[in-house]
C-alpha cells in the first residue's frame, strides 16, 4: 500500500446547505434527494421511513442517511444519477431535520435480488454529528421471509440481532411503506457492517 487512507471526519451539524440543500430549502442544487425512483421507474413503488435514535432513545435531528440500491430487476444502475430523472436513480439522500417527527424517508421501488445475494435489500450509510466514521447497514424486507432465510449476509448476523435489519411493511392510504428505525446503541442497536 503506497499511500494511507485519508481519515474520515464527522459530517457535523451543518451539512444541509451543501449536501441536502433542496430538502432544507437552501439556494443550491442537489445531486441526490429522497427520491430514489421517480414515478416512471418499473417495479413496486414503496416508501421507506424511519427514525434514528441515540443511546438515550432520543430521535436524532441532524443525521443524514444515504441509500444505494438495485432496481426492481436486481441490477445496480450504471446510468449517471440525475435528480431531474423521473425513472430509476438508485441513490437517495435524506436528512432527519425537516420531517415533523424527525424521520428520514425514501421514495423508491422495491429492489430485486442482486446476483450475489439471496434476498432483496437496500444499502444504507448513516452519517451524523458525533460519528467520526460513517456506518454501513442494510434494510431488508419483512415480507420476504423465505428469501431472507437464504441471504448469506443476513444469515451471518446473530439471530437475535437480525430483526434490526428488517423493515416492516405497512399499507397506508398513500401507498406501501416499509418502516425501520436505526438505533445507534442499546438493546436494539442496529447491526452495522464492516464493508
Amino acid at each position, binding site marked *: 500500500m503506497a499511500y494511507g*487512507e485519508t481519515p474520515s471526519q464527522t459530517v457535523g451539524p*451543518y451539512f444541509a*446547505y451543501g449536501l441536502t440543500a433542496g430538502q432544507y430549502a437552501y439556494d443550491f442544487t442537489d445531486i441526490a434527494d429522497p427520491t430514489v425512483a421517480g414515478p416512471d421507474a418499473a417495479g413496486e413503488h414503496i416508501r421507506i421511513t424511519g427514525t434514528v435514535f441515540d443511546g438515550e432513545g432520543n430521535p436524532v435531528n441532524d443525521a443524514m442517511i444515504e441509500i444505494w440500491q438495485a432496481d426492481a430487476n436486481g441490477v445496480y444502475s450504471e446510468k449517471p444519477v440525475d435528480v431531474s430523472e423521473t425513472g430509476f436513480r438508485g441513490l437517495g439522500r435524506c436528512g432527519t431535520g425537516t420531517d415533523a417527527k424527525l424521520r428520514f424517508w425514501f421514495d423508491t421501488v422495491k429492489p430485486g435480488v442482486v446476483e450475489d445475494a439471496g434476498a432483496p435489500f437496500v444499502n444504507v450509510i448513516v452519517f451524523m454529528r458525533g460519528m467520526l466514521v460513517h456506518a*454501513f447497514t442494510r434494510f431488508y424486507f419483512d415480507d420476504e421471509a423465505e428469501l431472507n432465510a437464504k441471504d448469506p449476509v443476513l444469515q451471518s448476523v446473530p439471530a437475535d440481532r437480525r430483526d434490526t435489519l428488517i423493515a416492516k411493511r405497512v399499507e397506508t392510504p398513500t401507498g406501501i411503506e416499509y418502516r425501520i428505525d436505526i438505533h445507534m446503541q442499546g438493546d436494539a442497536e442496529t447491526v452495522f457492517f464492516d*464493508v
Partner: protein
Amino acid sequence: MSTFKPRDWGSHAPYIAPGYKSTILRGPTQAPLAIKSGVSEGTGPRFAPASVRELDFDLTKNGVVNGEPLGERIVVHGRVMDTDGRPQPNILVEIWQANAAGRYVHKVDQHDAPLDPNFRGSGRCFTDDQGNYKFYTIKPGAYPWGNHFNAWRPNHIHISLFGPGFATRLVTQMYFPGDPLLDLDPIFLGTEDAAARERLIAKFSIEATEEGFALGYQFDIVLRGRNGTPMEN
C-alpha cells in the same frame, strides 16, 4: 467490477472517542460485522455532468448577491487517488464550510458572528481524468462549539466524496497547516494515529498560489484501493 481492499481502521477514529462528547451516545457500541464484499459494495453512483454547474467550484462567486465575499481568497486543489496511488477520475467532490468570520449559513448555527451576504459556503466539482480537483473559496474562520469550556474548531473545510464504489464513500475535513487549535480539537484528535492525522492537513503551496489573487493549498485525498483480482462470480 472489482472489490475494494478492507477499510484500514488504523487510519480512522473509533466510533466512540470520549473527548468528542457527541460520540458517546451516537457511536455504535458493537463492532461492525465484516461481510464479504460483493456487487453491492463494489458498485456506486455516477453523476450526470449537469450535477455540476459552471460556478459550483468557485465559492468566491457562487453565493454573490451584491459584491465580493469578505475574507482571504484561497485556491484548494489536490488529487483524489487510491491507496495504490491510482488517480480517481470523474469523482464528485462536494464541499461546505463556514465563512471568514466562522459562521455557517446553516439556520441552526447560532454563533454570534456575521453572515456574509455574498458567501454561501458550499460547492462541488468533478475530478478530471488525472483525479485532480480545484476549488476557489474563502479561508474559513474558527468558531466556538459546545463540546467543552472554550472549545474552538480549527479552520476547516468539509469534503464529501463518493469514490468509485459505495464502499469507498468518504466524508472528511481538510485543515490548514500551523493551526494552533488542531492540538486541542477532539474531532481532529479523534483519529488516534498521528501519521494519519497529518493526512488531514493541507500543504501551503506557493506553486498553486495565484499571483495577486489567492493563496494556494494542496490537499490530496486517498481512498481505499482495489483488490488485485477481479471479483469471483
